[in-house]
């Protein structure tokens, strides 16, 4: 077979398939088709490794029965697979018995097969799968052909990797969205029972499984009792309780760490009855509150979903997901617990009905929002309002863990006794209930101007025992009732002076045994003493408030991650668009580039002949310049749309900089731009693609020169950073900087503010830098200029081609 004749055609077709829209499977089977036809083999099959990397699963084939797709599983390591996974190259054999998939395929399909070759699919070190060609001829391929097949395999690997990245991004996004919704739902469940059932239901939605069991710990008996479940009714009925420390759930509860079990039947040490259990795989995580396990959630037998790689066992990602859900669930459980237990508590502590209903109203109101500031405001309002806890003033201080300080955040209350009287009677007249007030809009203006809020913000204490009562409230997680602040050695002079009161109480805001902050209250105006029962109530309230605050923090964390993912997805979409564009551009490039060469080439000749005078020369200049521009656009678009592999070799970055600067010398002189160059000679040569890095520097310098226009300065520096693990290059110009609305867009392909720009310069620059595993940073001073810094890792070149880059 004359393989070279069809090489180019095949490669082109594969690139076309790679860039086409359909799902991965369709693309793989198109490739299998193509290979079967063009290489004239009986069968071409593509197997992909599953999540666990234990099996190869048939994902596409031509020549075999289509019903085998997804149903043939070959253990990795069996037959030749182990060998070529290690060697990373194709292995051929004319002894059909040696090739692995044989035993796994129906005999009738293999009758005339005389030869088989398996080509592994790799993404860097990661083994993705294998491409199998079966032929009825003896030794149909020469070494050139095999080499060519390997390069096709490379392309196929790229296709798979990209599909996986897109899939993962979409998948995580939907998971996070779900988690976020779940959090909100959990927060609004009204009774413990309905909450527990909701947790079970949502766990199963998040990670499809045959069953889910939720257990809560009964502290008196030390038994984990099933409180809600789905599936495995018989099992649930038989084993309603488990002792702490026994079986999977018992161990999870006791050790407070998740367990992920692939096959419970192998785990006889965990539970003696493991052989008779009606399920095989288990994922179990603890529900933790105040550093203690209050229960467990267990998922049983993962269901196959629609995935690129189907794994029927739980994986680390499932574990993380369930653990995140569990941390939200634990908060919700505890809070609901709390409320349900309140009735009991009320009797014990003889809490007044009024107080109970206040707590109820407040916790309801807080559920209405997930905004941290609002919740904080509600907490303080509830503490100070006459219908609420009725303190004169309330201050909220939050722990800043990094700085280890307690920082005042917000203060609520009147500034003076008269104002106090006015507000209280005013509210009464308006006939507003506590809930009305809590749900009203935050009067942010008033709040930020108020004197009490100012005092609050000025409070700042280091969290060490020596700094006194506020720090101790956090450290010891208990309340303090101060009756003589000015004389008390535990109250610092500074705090006493700012509060200007002798009597105040300080209680910790707790969430899951962590002190988030301190609630400080006083009765500075009516001088009402703070009683023991006031303090009890305040503690209870602070617990509730702490949980509410903690859960908003979880939300905002989730929302941030969510945003981040949306951005990644946006970039993926962008790059897909570009791929389509590139495909088109590649197609016409040939057609366009040749005429451009002729037009531009002859124009240049004419220009030489005319010796650069007169209007003709001017017109010629325009032609030459415009052709140059078109050629650059063509080059940029093509570059951008292709995966240009890095051609790495050890290079001295300083030499590349100096080389590049040569280009700019005359232009700089002409425009009166002074260049200051300081290069760190200590930077060792390291692996990089010198052409592409040169491109980066050219792009950045061109932008700077264009921004300066005339008369200015260009600073070029190279240096080592991060313990000599990173080489930095900095280019600073005096071009006036980048306007804010422009700044957000500069890396977007085709964004430009210039008449003759393509807007691909920085997009390309970023792409190249990221491919090197590096970063690009901007310091922008509007009115002055910009500094672009590129950081390139010196030795971690294997971390290149990050998944964010597609």
């Amino acid at each position, binding site marked *: 077979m004359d393989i*070279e*004749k069809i*090489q*180019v055609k095949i*490669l082109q077709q594969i*690139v076309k398939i790679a860039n086409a829209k359909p799902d991965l499977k369709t693309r793989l089977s198109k490739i299998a088709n193509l290979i079967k036809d063009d290489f004239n083999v009986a069968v071409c099959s593509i197997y992909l490794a599953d999540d666990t990397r234990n099996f190869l699963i048939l994902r596409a084939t031509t020549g075999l029965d289509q019903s085998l797709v997804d149903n043939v599983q070959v253990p990795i390591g069996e037959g030749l697979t182990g060998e070529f996974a290690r060697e990373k190259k194709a292995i051929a054999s004319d002894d059909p018995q040696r090739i692995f998939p044989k035993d796994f395929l129906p005999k009738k399909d293999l009758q005339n097969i005389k030869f088989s070759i398996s080509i592994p699919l790799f993404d860097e070190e990661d083994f993705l799968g294998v491409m199998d060609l079966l032929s009825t001829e003896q030794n149909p391929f020469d070494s050139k052909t095999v*080499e*060519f097949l390997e*390069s096709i395999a490379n392309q196929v690997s790229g296709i798979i990797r990209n599909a996986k990245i897109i899939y993962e991004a979409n998948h995580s996004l939907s998971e996070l969205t779900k988690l976020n919704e779940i959090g909100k739902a959990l927060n609004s469940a009204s009774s413990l029972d309905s909450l527990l059932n909701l947790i079970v239901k949502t766990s199963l939605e998040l990670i499809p499984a045959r069953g889910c069991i939720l257990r809560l710990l009964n502290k008196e008996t030390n038994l984990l009792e099933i409180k809600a479940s789905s599936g495995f009714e018989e099992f649930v009925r038989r084993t309603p309780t488990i002792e702490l420390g026994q079986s999977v759930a018992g161990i999870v509860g006791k050790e407070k760490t998740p367990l992920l079990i692939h096959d419970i039947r192998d785990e006889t040490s965990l539970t003696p009855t493991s052989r008779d259990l009606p399920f095989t795989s288990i994922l179990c995580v603890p529900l933790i509150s105040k550093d203690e396990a209050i229960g467990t959630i267990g998922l049983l037998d993962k269901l196959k979903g629609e995935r690129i790689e189907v794994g029927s066992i739980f994986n680390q990602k499932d574990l993380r997901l369930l653990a995140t859900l569990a941390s939200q669930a634990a908060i919700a459980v505890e809070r609901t617990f709390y409320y349900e237990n309140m009735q009991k508590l009320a009797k014990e502590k003889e809490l007044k009905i009024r107080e109970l209903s206040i707590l109820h109203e407040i916790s309801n109101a807080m559920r209405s929002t997930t905004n941290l500031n609002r919740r904080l405001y509600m907490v303080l309002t509830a503490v100070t309002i006459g219908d609420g806890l009725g303190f004169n003033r309330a201050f909220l201080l939050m722990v800043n863990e990094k700085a280890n300080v307690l920082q005042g955040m917000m203060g609520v209350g009147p500034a003076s006794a008269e104002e106090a009287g006015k507000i209280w009677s005013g509210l009464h007249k308006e006939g507003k209930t506590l809930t009305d007030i809590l749900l009203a809009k935050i009067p942010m203006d008033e709040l930020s101007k108020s004197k009490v809020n100012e005092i609050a913000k000025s409070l700042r204490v280091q969290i060490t025992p020596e700094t006194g009562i506020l720090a101790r409230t956090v450290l010891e997680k208990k309340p303090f009732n101060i009756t003589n602040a000015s004389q008390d050695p535990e109250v610092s002079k500074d705090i006493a002076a700012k509060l200007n009161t002798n009597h105040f109480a300080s209680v910790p805001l707790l969430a899951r045994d962590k002190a988030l902050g301190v609630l400080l209250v006083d009765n500075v105006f009516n001088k009402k003493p703070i009683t023991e029962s006031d303090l009890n109530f305040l503690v209870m309230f602070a617990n509730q408030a702490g949980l509410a605050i903690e859960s908003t923090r979880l939300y905002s964390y989730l929302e941030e991650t969510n945003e981040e993912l949306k951005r990644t997805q946006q970039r993926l979409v962008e790059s897909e668009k570009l791929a389509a564009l590139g495909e088109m551009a*590649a197609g016409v*490039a*040939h057609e*366009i*580039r*040749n*005429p*451009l*060469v*002729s*037009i*531009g*080439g*002859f*124009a*240049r*000749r004419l220009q030489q002949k005319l010796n650069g005078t007169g209007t003709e020369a001017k017109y010629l200049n325009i032609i*030459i310049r415009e*052709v*140059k521009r078109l*050629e650059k656009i063509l*080059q940029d678009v*093509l570059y951008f749309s*292709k995966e240009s*592999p890095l051609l790495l070799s050890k290079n001295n970055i300083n030499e590349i900089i100096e080389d590049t600067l040569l280009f700019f010398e005359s232009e700089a002189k002409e425009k009166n731009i002074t260049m200051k160059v300081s290069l760190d000679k200590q930077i060792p040569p390291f692996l990089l693609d010198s052409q592409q890095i040169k491109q980066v520097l050219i792009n950045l310098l061109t932008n700077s020169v264009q921004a300066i226009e005339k008369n200015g300065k260009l600073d070029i520096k190279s240096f080592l950073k991060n313990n000599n693990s990173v080489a930095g290059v900095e280019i600073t110009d005096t071009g006036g900087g980048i306007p804010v609305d422009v700044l957000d867009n500069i890396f977007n392909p085709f964004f430009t503010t210039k008449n003759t720009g393509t807007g691909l310069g920085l997009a390309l620059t970023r792409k190249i830098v990221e491919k090197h595993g590096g970063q690009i940073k901007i310091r922008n001073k509007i009115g002055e200029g910009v500094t672009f810094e590129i950081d390139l890792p010196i030795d971690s070149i294997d971390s290149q081609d990050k998944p964010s880059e597609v």
Partner: protein
Amino acid sequence: MPRILVIDDEENIRLLYEIELKEEGYEIITAATAEEALKILETSEVDLITLDIRLPGMNGIEFLRKVKEKKRELPVLMCTAYDDYKQDFGVWASEAYIVKSSDLAELKTRIKEFLK
């Protein structure tokens, strides 16, 4: 005078290369197809070849292989409009890979390197 064989199916490009390279002091022979070029090589000695890849009939990569089988030492510069072939191992046998441009400076420097 060093002799260069220019292979390109576009007449304008052949003409441009011919004029420009003659001015650099080379003798130029041109061919529009690979087949034609092979014939020329049977009868004439050349010192360097510039070779387009997309050609009617036999393509540049095939031609490259045929030439290299016989004359390992003869420098061949690939000059193409489409730089995707760069990744094709078939072109690795060539001495240089140049993407065509209306500015012939790069082509000229590369040729000079090989014909010193």
